[in-house]
């Protein structure tokens, strides 16, 4: 890993890189929010306009998935989504280190989701009703089995949220690092500059092809994946919350399959 991947440019002594860059993301988002809400106008302009467009996208998504009763959860969902999106995009900036390429950050996000949707369910239905739902609409003899299975499936949710975001980000990260390593001064470009005639031709053409491939294909792909992963994280959060909120209405009816 150390061979192909370089440390980020800016590091604070004694503080892990992902924490430093989490603070950077917080500064970016907090600064945007501060600038956007300093002079709130009825007809939005500039930063405020941009932020309102972004938040309206989130609201539209919530309305589609959860209906209007999902609106109170906008702060949680939008904060997670924006944090993950900016964190993902930050890892694409050369010399930076995205916070979401570290397992600790993604695990923190997933645990926040896990505890909040259970808290929302508890508050909405009360402990007994909420726990009862874990048993599902099955005959009495099967209820203990169902309860255990449901508990395991609920515990698997934060795990899969964590690993999905982390794996997608780190997979792309390692791919880019390997491509840059192959392309760089120890690879094709180094060969082109080494002075030999064959190296100049093969390394030059190969390096040019790799640069075009990286800029034209890999970077857009990574940007797409960044948006997609943030979207999926928000979407699954909404599904979990709406599952916890709506559970009482499904009593005795058709059982919702668990979303992992």
């Amino acid at each position, binding site marked *: *890993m150390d061979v192909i991947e370089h440390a980020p440019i800016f590091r604070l002594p004694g503080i892990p890189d992902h924490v430093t860059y989490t603070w950077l993301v917080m500064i970016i988002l907090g600064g945007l929010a501060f600038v956007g809400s300093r002079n709130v106008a009825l007809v939005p302009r500039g930063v405020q306009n941009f932020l309102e467009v972004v938040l309206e996208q989130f609201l539209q998504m919530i309305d*589609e*998935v959860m209906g209007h009763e999902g609106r109170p959860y906008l702060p949680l969902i939008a904060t997670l989504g924006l944090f993950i999106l900016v964190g993902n995009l930050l890892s694409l900036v050369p010399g930076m280190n995205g916070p979401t390429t570290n397992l600790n950050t993604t695990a923190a996000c997933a645990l926040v989701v896990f505890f909040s949707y259970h808290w929302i369910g508890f508050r909405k239905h009360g402990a007994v009703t909420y726990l009862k739902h874990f048993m599902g609409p099955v005959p009495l003899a099967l209820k203990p089995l169902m309860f255990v299975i449901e508990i395991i499936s609920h515990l698997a949710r934060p795990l*899969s949220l964590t*690993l*999905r975001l*982390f*794996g*997608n980000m*780190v*997979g792309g990260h*390692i791919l880019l690092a390997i491509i840059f390593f192959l392309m760089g001064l120890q690879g094709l470009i180094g060969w082109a500059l080494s002075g030999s005639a064959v190296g100049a031709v093969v390394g030059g053409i190969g390096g040019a092809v790799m640069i075009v491939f990286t800029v034209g294909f890999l970077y857009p792909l990574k940007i797409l994946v960044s948006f*997609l992963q943030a*979207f*999926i994280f928000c*979407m*699954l959060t909404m*599904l979990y919350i709406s599952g916890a909120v709506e559970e009482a209405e499904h009593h005795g009816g058709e059982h919702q399959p668990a*979303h*992992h």
Partner: protein
Amino acid sequence: MRRPLTLAALVVLGIPGLALAADAPAGGSLIGPYSVLVAGFAMAFAAGLCALGQGRAVASAVDAMARQPGAAARIQTAMIIGLALIESLAIYVLVVAMILLFVQPIK
């Protein structure tokens, strides 16, 4: 030679053992070289099978969108969620492969 793939796999899997047996002292662990091989093969299998599954999902989703263009947005959302859930299985394998390659908990 009726099963060239099996033979090739045996040869490939045998190489690190031979290479290591040549210069490693007795008691040298084979886990390191094998874990590199296993990580690569595991990722290859996971990516291939994940691609099959996702291909089926996308094919049905596109089929449904062509039949009912009105419901395209909802189908697309469901498709993306489904793809994420399918993909997460391959991602688990990626994480295991990365643990084998970089963390190397078993030596």
